[in-house]
């Protein structure tokens, strides 16, 4: 992850996207969470030598992003930033796995390259579906959906608190980093001594802040639970959304659509 400024840009931008209005934004958050999880499960259940079978599944993130008015370039940029670990593990496949898997007449492609392609495809599909979910739903709605789906209250409260204070503490940390950068020349002053006292200072201030927050919460009648406003209800269109998409995913998983399409096209040509 990059600098603190880019962190804010990222979270703020996703938040702005989630406050838009579209048919996807209006779907009940629980339905969206379930559909996304089922989608990811179907994607990762594909055989590692079958990248072509994954191709039609791209329709889900694509549809969500177009209907939800989410810019592709933004999601793609985020995918690139998140990709290094996956790529570095996947890169070993072409090197280690050299058994031929695809025969293209003139040359053949090794199994390693095929499984590399399928890992990359899986990464693009799962990560873009996850980002599309948060961009069309918003974090508060996801938290309330999670708590209504049975996730313990302590955890969802923690998620909401963390999300709220990332901005506050992040700004504070950004100011400290700027101050340190202005006072240090070359690599002097960027070492661990200054760093740990910086984090220590931030920690002490944070604990004081926690005490003030707690008092403020008690003044406002905090009883250990956070109440979400106007919980949405699941209506017929939501059920159809879930049933339609998961039916499609199941069909695409059970029947190899690209193989059929390729064979038909080959016959036509």
């Amino acid at each position: 992850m990059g600098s603190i400024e880019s962190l804010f840009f990222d979270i703020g931008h996703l938040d702005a996207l989630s406050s838009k209005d579209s048919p996807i934004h209006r779907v009940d958050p629980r339905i969206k969470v379930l559909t996304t999880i089922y989608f990811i499960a179907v994607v990762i259940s594909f055989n590692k030598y079958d990248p072509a079978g994954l191709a039609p599944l791209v329709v889900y993130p694509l549809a969500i992003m177009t209907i939800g008015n989410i810019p592709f370039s933004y999601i793609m940029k985020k995918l690139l930033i998140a990709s290094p670990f996956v790529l570095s593990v996947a890169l070993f496949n072409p090197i280690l796995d050299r058994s031929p898997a695809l025969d293209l007449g003139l040359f053949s492609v090794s199994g390693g390259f095929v499984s590399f392609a399928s890992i990359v495809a899986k990464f693009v599909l799962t990560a873009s579906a996850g980002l599309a979910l948060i961009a069309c739903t918003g974090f508060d709605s996801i938290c309330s959906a999670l708590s209504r789906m049975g996730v313990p209250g302590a955890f969802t409260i923690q998620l909401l608190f963390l999300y709220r204070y990332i901005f506050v503490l992040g700004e504070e940390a950004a100011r400290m980093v700027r101050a340190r950068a202005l006072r240090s020349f070359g690599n002097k002053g960027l070492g661990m001594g200054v760093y740990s006292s910086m984090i220590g200072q931030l920690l002490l201030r944070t604990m004081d802040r926690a005490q003030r927050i707690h008092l403020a919460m008690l003044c406002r009648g905090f009883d250990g639970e956070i109440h979400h406003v106007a919980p949405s209800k699941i209506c017929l269109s939501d059920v159809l959304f879930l049933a339609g998409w998961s039916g499609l995913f199941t069909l695409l998983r059970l029947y190899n659509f690209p193989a059929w399409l390729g064979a038909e096209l080959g016959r036509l040509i």
Partner: protein
Amino acid sequence: MHMADALISPAVGGVMLAATAGLTVYSARKLKEEIDDRKIPLMGVLGALVFAAQMINFTIPGTGSSGHLGGAMLLAILLGPYAAFLTMASILTIQALFFADGGLLALGCNIFNMGFFPCFVAFPLIYKRIAANSPERKRILAAAMAASIIGLQLGAFGVVMETFSSDISALSFKIFVLLMLPIHLAIGIVEGFVTASVVGFVTKTRPGVLKMATELSGSKQISIKPVLITLVIIAALTGGFLSWFGSANPDGLEWSIARSSVNKVLESSESGIHALLSRVQKKTAVFPDYNFRKDKTEEYAKGERTQGKQDAWPSVSAGTSISGLLGGAMSLVLAGLIGFGIKTFQRRRTNK
């Protein structure tokens, strides 16, 4: 270094997600027992602190690289294991949702690797034993160092185990271990130094804070037993459930074996005692599939070699390869067309 969805199989993701869900419920219940709602805002802001601290780098002398705080051990020292586990889980959830850093199904793996090991293994078994609440600097350093290193080594080993049992990467177990463990040894040493120096700074400037933290985290001894027992039960249950699921929908590898003639031999031997035993094993094993995986892969490879272009899958023949590629490309184009169609439809509606 977060596990991604693309590197795990649904079975591994599901089991780890179930285990993490169990731990989360357990920690939340334990936290409720303490009935101290001072901790709720404290957990939130400390989580945000770790998040912010991960963005601040420092230079590591003599290497030219830079490091930052991981935070799990610091959280465990300040909050106690249960609250620290929940806080770590929330940090990882936000990273997965907002940064695609670790996937949604892989979240279970990530929380287990980076939350369970430091909070429930390294902190109570190593840090607490060595540090023993003494304000001595050297002691804190030794404790933080040992706990951070061991916590991170276990986490890295977890990553290797999860990747290996998912059978997606071609990396062999040994090479992957040799790659991951040394890297995380270095990270663990840095983490240990940072944790110790932050804790040292706090004890020096405001000694009351850590005392408050230990009071907040409960005076009771943390017992690891219930956690382990619930884990084993959950793993057994989900393993059984998933294997039942798995046998109904065989994955590609099993399917390929089912289609190759090797399986006919296998099937014919599955009568009498052998069948009975395998049935018993299927019922009792936590990972019924993985017991056979290695032999299956070997047989699969053998079958491919000897049978060549018969019906082993993926069958290596030009015709199916090309039609597969063509079909894949065409379905991508189709999906793109659907997206494009939605876009033009929307534009027309807004123009009206």
